[in-house]
C-alpha cells in the first residue's frame, strides 16, 4: 500500500470527481424510471452496452462521432420504450420482485445477443482526445468532456422536469398515481415517455463511455451493480440523492483504487454501501417520513 497525501492522491481525488459525473448520469436514468414506474431495470447497464455498440458501429460505418452519438442515444431511447412495452407493461400488476427479475432475463438476453452479434473481443472506437497536464497531474480530455456533458445532461433533464407539462406530470405521477386520469394524464403515455428518456440517458452515458472504455458484451456487469448501489444509497427514485451518492462512491473507487488495487477500490465502495444502508436503510438522503 502506498497512500500519501501527495499530488497523486489529489489526482486520484480529482479523477474520482470526474468519474462521479458519469456515475451520476448513469444513476439518473435508473432513478427516473424507478421514481415514475416503480420498476428497477436490472438490465440498465446492458442498455448502455447496446448504445456503445450502436455508436461504435455507426462511427465505423462512416458517421461522424456526433452523429453516431445521436443515433446511439435514439437507439437506446427506442430500446427503453420497447423494454417498457414488451416486458414491463405486462408485469405492471405483478409482485415487485417479478418486475425486477423480468428485466434480469432481458439482461441475460442482451448480453448473449451482443456476444453472438459482436463476439467477445474488446472493441475500441479509436478516438483519442489526449490529456491535459496540470502540475504533475494528468487528466484525460475524454473524462473532462464526460464530466461536462454529464452535468449538461442532468441540467437538461432538470429543465425538462420543471418547465414542461410532461416533465411536471412525470414528477407528479410518483406522488399520486391514481388521480392522474383526473388531470387528463394518460399514465401509459407518461410511462412510455419516461422509459424513452431513461433509455436516452443510458444512450448519452454510452456516448461518453465509448470515449473512455473498451466495449465488450459483459461491460454491463462492471457498471450495473455500481449503478444500483448508487441509486439505493441515494434513495431509489431520488435523483438528487443519487447525484450525491455518485460522488461519494466515486471517491471510494478512485482513492481506494489508487491506494490499493482497482478491485479493492470497488470492494471498499460496496462495503461502505452495505454499512451505510444499515445506518440509513432508505438511503442516505431519503426524506424523513
Amino acid at each position: 500500500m502506498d497512500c500519501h497525501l501527495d499530488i497523486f492522491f489529489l489526482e486520484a481525488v480529482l479523477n474520482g470527481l470526474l468519474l462521479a459525473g458519469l456515475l451520476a448520469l448513469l444513476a439518473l436514468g435508473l432513478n427516473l424510471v424507478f421514481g415514475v414506474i416503480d420498476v428497477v431495470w436490472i438490465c440498465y447497464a446492458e442498455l448502455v452496452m447496446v448504445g456503445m455498440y450502436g455508436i461504435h458501429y455507426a462511427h465505423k460505418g462512416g458517421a461522424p462521432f456526433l452523429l453516431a452519438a445521436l443515433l446511439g442515444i435514439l437507439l437506446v431511447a427506442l430500446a427503453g420504450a420497447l423494454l417498457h412495452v414488451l416486458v414491463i407493461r405486462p408485469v405492471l400488476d405483478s409482485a415487485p420482485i417479478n418486475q425486477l427479475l423480468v428485466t434480469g432475463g432481458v439482461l441475460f438476453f442482451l448480453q448473449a445477443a451482443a456476444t453472438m452479434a459482436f463476439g467477445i473481443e474488446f472493441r475500441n472506437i479509436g478516438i483519442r482526445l489526449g490529456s491535459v497536464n496540470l502540475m504533475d497531474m494528468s487528466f484525460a480530455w475524454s473524462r473532462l468532456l464526460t464530466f461536462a456533458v454529464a452535468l449538461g445532461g442532468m441540467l437538461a433533464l432538470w429543465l425538462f422536469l420543471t418547465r414542461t407539462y410532461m416533465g411536471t406530470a412525470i414528477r407528479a405521477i410518483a406522488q399520486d398515481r391514481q388521480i392522474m386520469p383526473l388531470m387528463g394524464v394518460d399514465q401509459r403515455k407518461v410511462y412510455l415517455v419516461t422509459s424513452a428518456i431513461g433509455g436516452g440517458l443510458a444512450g448519452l452515458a454510452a456516448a461518453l463511455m465509448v470515449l473512455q472504455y473498451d466495449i465488450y458484451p459483459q461491460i454491463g456487469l462492471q457498471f450495473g451493480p455500481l449503478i444500483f448501489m448508487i441509486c439505493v444509497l441515494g434513495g431509489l427514485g431520488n435523483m438528487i440523492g443519487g447525484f450525491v451518492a455518485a460522488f461519494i462512491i466515486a471517491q471510494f473507487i478512485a482513492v481506494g483504487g489508487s491506494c490499493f488495487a482497482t478491485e479493492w477500490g470497488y470492494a471498499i465502495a460496496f462495503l461502505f454501501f452495505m454499512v451505510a444502508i444499515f445506518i440509513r436503510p432508505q438511503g442516505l438522503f431519503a426524506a424523513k417520513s
Partner: protein
Amino acid sequence: MIRFSPAAIIGIVALLLLPFAVRFFFAASEKYYLHLLIQILLWSFIYTGWSLMGRFGLTSLGHGAFTGIGAYTTVLLWNFAGLTPWLGIPVGVVLSVIVALLVGYPCFRLRITGHYFALMTLALTEFVRLCIVGLRDYTGGSLGTQPRRYGDGVSLYAMQFEPDRVLSYYVALALWAFGIWMWLKVDRSMDRYALDAANQDEDAAASVGIDVTREKLKITGLSAAMCALGGAIYGQYQMYIGPDTIAGLGVSLNIVFAVIAGGLWVPLGPTVGAVFTQLLSETLRVGMQGSATLRDWLGSAALALDTAVYGLLLVLFIIYMPKGILGTLMEWRGRRKRIADTAAVARTG
C-alpha cells in the same frame, strides 16, 4: 417422519438405479450423461437451498456470494493450509452463515424488503466477487483456481471423487435428497407458517407474537449454509472454481431464475428448474455442434445462444407462467381433478 408415497418410492429406486441404466443404454458416452446428471443434482441442491428463503418473499441476489464463500474457503484451506475438505467445508459453511447473519440481521431489523433487499444482497455478491478477484495471489483472480490433487484417483481424505463418475453421482444424489428433505422439513415446520405470515403482513405477524427477525434469520442461515455446502461440493466435483462459475452476480441470477422457471412453491420446483436449464443449454450446445450452418453463421459466439434463449424464456416465464413449470403443471392437474371430481359428484348425485 416423512412417509413415502408409492410414486416417491418408485422415483427413489429409479434414481438409485439410474447410473446402471446409463451404463446399459449409453455405454459409449456414459461419462457425459453422468456428468449431466451430476450437474443437475448439484445445482438442484443449490437452487433448493435458495428457494427455502425465496418462497417467503426474501428474494436474495446474494446467494452467489454464499456458493462462492463455500467453494473458495474449502479450496483455499486445502491448497494453502492442507486442511482436509472434511473440515474445510464446515468452516466455509460456518463462514457463509456468519456473513448471511451479518447482512441479514440489519436487513430484517430495518425491514429492508423487496427491491431494496434484492439490491442489498446484490451488493454482497459483488463484494464477495471483488474480494475473490482482489485476492488473486491466492484465488487466481478472475481466472479461477483448482484444488490441489491428492494422488491420482479418488481420495476420501481430500474429498476428491471426481475421477469416479458413478461415485460422484451418488454423492450428488445424496446431497440432493438432503436438500429435498430439508425443504419438506421446513414446509412442515411451524416456522413456515410464521414466515408465510411475515411475508404477507409483517406487522400482523409481529402482533401475534412471531419474532419476525429471528424467523427470517433462521431461514436465511439455513439457506446460506446449503448454498455454501453446494458450492463447496460443486468445486470438489469440478476440480475448478472461478469467480464467474461459482460466485458473482451471474450465479445469483441463475439461481433465482432457475427456481422461478421450475416453480418456487413446490418441493421439486428447483429441481425441475435445474433439469430445464441444464437440458436447455446442453441441447442448444449439442444442436449447435451438429449444425454446420449455425456454426458458420455464429462462429465461436454460438456459445452464447443458450444464454440468449434462456434470457428470453425467463422473460416469457415471468410474464406468462409466474408459478414456473412444475407449479403450473400441478395447478392444471389440480384444476382438471377438481373438474373431474365435480363431474363425478354430479353423476352420483
